């Protein structure tokens, strides 16, 4: 039926994609790819939905409401490792390093992980930040038990720090700007990636079924999305402006700040292309999680990542 049309005018594929969490800087690339026509170039029409964290995103993927999703890779691996939900594969990394960090303000005089001993730290209850803290602390030479962890809803974190109800937060380092605004103090960041170097941050995932049925679509989507990601870190101001159009309450400055902050974590070491995932690192990630007792043994990198879509040079 498309004989009459010209050869390049293949029918567009309609897919739905869900962002990791809402519409903030770290997720701007999806809108950038759409706005700049990267998806259209490869014949894909994307419906971007705003995510609400790992669990809802995995649920949405499983229920077939979206075909692609961004989420925190480490958290998803923990779920897969527990055998709770394995029906997904990562196809590209958004952040090469985890963005999880300990964050505090300068007046606490906490400058190294060891300073946390005897202090209270708030984290998202049950979040990856909380789960990985013991592993992080041990590597940093701190007794994890010496820190009092207070689990709360993530929206409450900045307030608790600003009012000094706690001495530190376990949170994504991208919320640095928000904490600075909230506390009006200088923010100190101790990234987990200083010690846990192999953990990825957000990743783009899809279902094994789609990979099997239409690898070409997955490939095209991955390429276009990563092109958007590259473009975003190259042109943070423009990316933030595009995002601001979607969500006017999210200021350009905030968006640019976040994109700038995450840029170092997006670029792979050694000039590898954006989005690449290294099998060795994934294996070490799994090992770290197993080592800290978060998941049983048995999970292999191939269970969670399909390495075919971002080619190493």
């Amino acid at each position, binding site marked *: 039926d498309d004989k009459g049309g010209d050869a390049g005018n293949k029918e567009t594929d309609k897919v739905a994609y*869900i962002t990791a969490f*809402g*519409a*903030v800087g770290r997720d701007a690339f999806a809108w950038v790819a759409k706005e700049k026509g990267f998806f259209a170039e490869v014949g894909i029409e994307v419906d971007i*939905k*705003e995510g*609400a964290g790992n*669990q*809802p995103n995995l*649920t*949405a993927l*499983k*229920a077939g*409401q979206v075909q692609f999703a961004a989420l925190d890779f480490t958290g998803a691996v923990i779920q897969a490792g527990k055998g709770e939900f394995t029906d997904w594969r990562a196809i590209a990394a958004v952040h090469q390093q985890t963005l999880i960090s300990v964050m505090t303000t300068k007046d606490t005089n906490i400058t190294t992980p060891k300073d946390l001993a005897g202090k209270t730290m708030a984290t998202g209850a049950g979040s990856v930040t909380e789960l990985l803290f013991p592993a992080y602390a041990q590597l940093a030479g701190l007794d994890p038990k010496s820190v009092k962890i207070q689990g709360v809803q993530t*929206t409450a974190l*900045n*307030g608790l720090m*600003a*009012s000094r109800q706690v001495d530190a937060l376990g949170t994504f380092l991208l*919320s640095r*700007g*928000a*904490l600075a*605004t*909230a*506390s*009006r103090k200088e923010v100190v960041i101790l990234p987990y990636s200083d010690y846990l170097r192999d953990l990825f941050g957000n990743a783009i995932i899809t279902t094994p079924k789609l990979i099997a049925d239409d690898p070409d679509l997955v490939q095209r989507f991955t390429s276009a999305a990563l092109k958007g990601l590259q473009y975003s870190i190259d042109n943070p101001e423009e990316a933030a402006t595009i995002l601001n159009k979607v*969500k*006017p*309450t*999210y*200021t350009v400055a*905030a968006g640019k700040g976040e994109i700038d902050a995450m840029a170092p974590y997006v670029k792979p070491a050694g000039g590898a292309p954006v989005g690449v995932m290294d099998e060795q690192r994934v294996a070490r990630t799994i090992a770290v999680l197993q080592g800290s007792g978060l998941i049983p043994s048995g999970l292999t990198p191939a269970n969670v990542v399909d390495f075919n879509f971002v080619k190493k040079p």
Partner: protein
Amino acid sequence: MISLWWAATWVFDADPFFVPAPPDVVEAFTRLPTYLLEQAQVTLLETLVGYGLATVSAILLAILLAASRTIERMTFPTIAGINAIPKVALAPLFLVWVGFGPETKVLMALLLCFFPILVSTMAGLSSTPSDLGEMSRSLSASWWQTFVKVRLPWALPQLFVGLKVATALAIIGAIIGEVINPDKGLGSVIVSSVQTADTPMAFAALTLLAIMGAALFYAVAALERVLVPWARAISS
């Protein structure tokens, strides 16, 4: 009220991150007035649809339960139990069932305000004075006739109590839906401003919600005045 708020922020020298003073909030509002009003409209629409559906379905269910004490006895404990389940906890499930977009929000609004309407309608329906009930029976009125001509009109003042309580719950329901899937509406404004610690903007959204809540409440109260003028007349 606003002056009280202002005074409080001034007296306690409140940190604008926690409680911004009114001028900050006004400033936040003037930053994006049309956008905020558009989002308010989105939330309002979800609220109204959810509220409307809840009203209709709660009244229908109340009729069913009023029709048969057996059905009521059998099902009401379940309804009361289901109602105590925090919808917030189920929200991700709803997202899967009814999908992203306005449906989830409407569903949340509906679920949150359903029960008060149901309970107050049931209470109203079972409070028919015995002399009116007897009068209706003496005319051999059918169940339905008694219902429409005697029990329901008599229940209206109490039904409106439920409807008034439900306005706020419908708004809250829509917002919970929007927080879970923050694509549009004032709920998404709150989510994104909390993320950037833009408290004045969050308060601007909350203020709009408060205005919306008061407006809806008084709209229903005005409707009550029009529909049940007699209720005031026979009470002191």
